[in-house]
């Protein structure tokens, strides 16, 4: 019996995603839980596991297609069941909702095995506007095209707004698809577009990824025609890049940021680290980031204001009684920030192991959206690449982020002579609305002091 394979619930709030790659072909034999395709959602790349062991008989999507949660993307025959070779379109559909149209009740022409495929392609590919029109049977349904730079939209997918309102939105660089219509039947008025822009400028969270050609904050000025000066290439932004752009622009526009620099003498800590790693298996290797995780978690317990978020609407500071620290990981697709949970309650060995596993998982793009959520603070370590100093951007709604550059052996005056000491440059960026300058400096100094004398970690009472 043919079984449909649908896109499962991925995470709260995720309703759709883009197929970034198919891992199987029609006719492939698959194991249960084997990855069938990879989906890029707003939050992460998710693998769609096979619900059964058996054979894939039909694939209804292609790379680049947008799919909704619950949408049928493949069909297959589980092992042991009769290999029903009838086209999957003959499989009984879920009963139509009661609002079914009179036309839907008409019997389908028997010779239409392509019926389901057409439906799937049509929902997936807004781009195939051409396919939606018909002329004397010579226009076959076009296969889903790779999304053009500014995708053409099928007429029935253009939101309900008058031509003038749509032009108004275009002039402001607003993607009309993102505007909620307040009129009857969801009709979008000029006023709705204005409200949308106002909210976007005010940085309201529900304005979301707002701007048509460049999501990421308060709109984009019209670009000049760069081709006037030479050849250019255009490449669609990945979902990850769009989210980064949006988050960064939001943080930049809302958080008045201060960056405090300091240096920690890590000669002793680094000596311990190298000693430890000589005996440790690869998976347990201790990294400087793991050590920084542990020390920062302790610092966050001492300075709870740094482990907080601002709720200006309510006029409150939200202090979190947990310490989940995000670690920025450089991947080929862009920056991802997986979150290590309960850092304050974990020992250094556990943290080292967990961090190593998470970094590998991130680079292999195996994170789930949940892995990226819930951080209270972020560490961005660029020391592996180099540099002496940088100003990280606070990852809103967090209020602070620690940037780590490359440790260097430096001559340090001990009162009588220069000593060679390994010094680690640290840069703390913080939201000045939540944290005063002196507190920011104290927080970073505390971290440096603890790196130099880890006994400090034991000075505070457990809470």
């Amino acid at each position, binding site marked *: 019996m043919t079984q449909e394979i649908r896109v499962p619930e991925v995470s709260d709030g995720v309703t759709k995603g883009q197929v970034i790659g198919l891992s199987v072909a029609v006719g492939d034999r698959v194991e249960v839980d084997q990855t069938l395709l990879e989906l890029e959602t707003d939050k992460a790349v998710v693998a769609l596991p096979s619900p059964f062991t058996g054979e894939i008989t039909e694939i209804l999507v292609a790379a680049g297609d947008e799919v909704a949660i619950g949408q049928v993307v493949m069909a297959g025959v589980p092992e042991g069941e009769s290999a029903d070779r009838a086209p999957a379109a003959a499989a009984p559909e879920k009963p*139509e909702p009661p609002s079914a149209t009179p036309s839907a009740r*008409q019997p389908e022409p028997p010779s239409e095995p392509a019926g389901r495929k057409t439906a799937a392609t049509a*929902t997936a590919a807004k781009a195939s506007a051409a396919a939606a029109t018909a*002329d004397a049977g010579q226009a076959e349904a076009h296969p889903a095209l790779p999304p053009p*730079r500014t995708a053409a939209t099928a007429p*029935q997918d*253009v939101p*309900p707004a008058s031509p003038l309102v749509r032009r108004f939105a275009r002039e402001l660089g607003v993607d009309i698809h993102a505007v909620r219509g307040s009129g009857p039947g969801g*009709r979008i008025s000029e006023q709705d577009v204005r409200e949308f822009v106002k909210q976007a400028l005010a940085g309201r969270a529900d304005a979301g990824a707002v701007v048509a050609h460049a999501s990421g904050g308060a709109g984009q000025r019209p670009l000049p025609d760069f081709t006037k000066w030479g050849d250019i290439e255009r490449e669609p932004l990945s979902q990850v890049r769009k989210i980064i752009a949006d988050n960064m622009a939001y943080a930049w526009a809302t958080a008045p940021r201060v960056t405090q620099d300091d240096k920690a003498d890590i000669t002793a800590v680094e000596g311990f680290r190298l000693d430890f790693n000589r005996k440790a298996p690869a998976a347990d290797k201790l990294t400087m980031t793991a050590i920084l995780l542990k020390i920062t978690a302790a610092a966050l317990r001492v300075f709870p204001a740094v482990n907080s978020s601002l709720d200006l609407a309510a006029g409150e500071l939200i202090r979190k009684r947990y310490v989940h620290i995000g670690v920025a990981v450089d991947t080929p697709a862009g920056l991802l920030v997986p979150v290590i949970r309960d850092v304050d309650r974990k020992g250094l060995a556990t943290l080292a192991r967990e961090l190593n596993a998470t970094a590998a998982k991130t680079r292999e793009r195996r994170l789930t959206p949940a892995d990226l959520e819930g951080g209270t603070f972020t560490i961005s370590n660029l020391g592996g690449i180099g540099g002496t100093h940088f100003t990280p951007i606070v990852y809103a709604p967090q209020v602070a982020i620690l940037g780590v550059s490359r440790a260097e052996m430096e001559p340090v005056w001990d009162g009588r002579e220069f000593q060679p000491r390994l010094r680690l440059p640290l840069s703390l960026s913080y939201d000045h609305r939540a944290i005063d300058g002196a507190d920011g400096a104290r927080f970073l100094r505390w971290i440096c002091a603890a790196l130099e004398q880890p006994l400090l970690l034991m000075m505070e009472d457990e809470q």
Partner: protein
Amino acid sequence: MTKARQEATIEKAPLVVIGAGPGGYAAAFRAVELGLAVTLVDPEANPGGVCLHRGCIPSKAFLHAAKLVRDAAEAKAMGLHFAAPRLDIDALRGWKDGIVETLTGGLGGKVKQKQIRYLRGRARLSGPRELAVDLTEGKTAALAFDQAILATGSRPVLPAFGADLSERIVDSTGALHPPSVPGTLLVIGGGYIGLELGSVYAALGSRVTVVEMLPQLMTGADRDLVSQLKRRLDRQFEAILTATKVLGLKEQKNGVKVTLQDKQGGQSSKLFDRVLVAVGRRPNIENLGLEAAGVALTDGFIKVDAERRTTAPGIYAIGDVTGQPMLAHKAAHEGQVAAAVAAGRPAAFEPRAIPAVCFTDPEIAWTGLTETEARDQKRPIKTAKIPWRSLGRTLTLGRDDGLTKLIVDPDTDLVLGVGLAGPGAGELIGEATLAIEMAARWQDLAFTIHAHPTLSEGIMEAAATFFA
């Protein structure tokens, strides 16, 4: 040496529009209004393209003549008796040519008045920023452009039936320049072009047979609309053969011998005085130098985005070369979009509805979502239909046929599509297209006062049935 001469004559052209059909001249006019210096290239003496020279306009002129003939014949029922019309085919053709000249000449005047540089000839891209025009007068002009809009349109498809075009075997172009009216005519292709021209010849006295490969006339249009048309065409035409293939054409002294194969596989041969091939149109994308400029195709059409940019920087494409539907008004709208984008204005081709009209008798017209598309997409819809015989106006026109159909969203009540069949349906579809573009709900149509007695009441009446 050739190279040196060419280089010496390369001229600069900020915006070149290739093709002066409804898309091309609309783009050129809009671009001039927006302050660009425009060069328009076309092989014809005046703008107009297929639409004005050999398409929409001449066919509508003939269709109007055909309507007069039919109306006169049907007036018998009202007690009005006219003598059978005496046809002067040369005068009819001359009248049609006069209309074409007036319109294209008017456009030619507008080109001059707007100070558009008009080059008569065929353009071919020779690089990402260069093109050569083979001028009709014989020379070649080389242009270095900043931006270009490709609007070269389409031409009839000519399948290999074993015979070439001739006096007896014609395409739509030939059918619009008839030297005489044939006694018998075979129309190959049951799409709108074949049915419109078939209707003309039937009214002028030909016995017309239509052969269509697919099981239905006007594939893509909703069946309830087409069946309104078919009922009347069955009376106008000698025969309508659907699900029938043409295997071959053979030109003989006394006519064209046509071999047909029906859906059971049975073959037969028939002799016709003339054969009209109208099986579709294909985009004019050959000999344009697309590769030299880096313009990519998709499914046989030029690939464009919503702003009508091709894959080559600074080059746009509009109209029939960009895909279905191949309609003049779609091309004109795209032309305005491309011109605005070329002038640095925000614009996009994103209609909520594109009307389509088949100018047969009765006319078939639709706009927005069709019931067929909704069914293919498994999209939930509600429909309402009103037969025109329930409208007073229909009977006063001496008619009893016609249909208005509304397609609405069951959740939002928004009007998604409208289909019409009946006399003058093409004039009525405008209201429906506006309703969809303005995101009207069916209640808006029901509550709008429509003049009585008119056929437009059908839209209001159909909407009102949703209250029941």
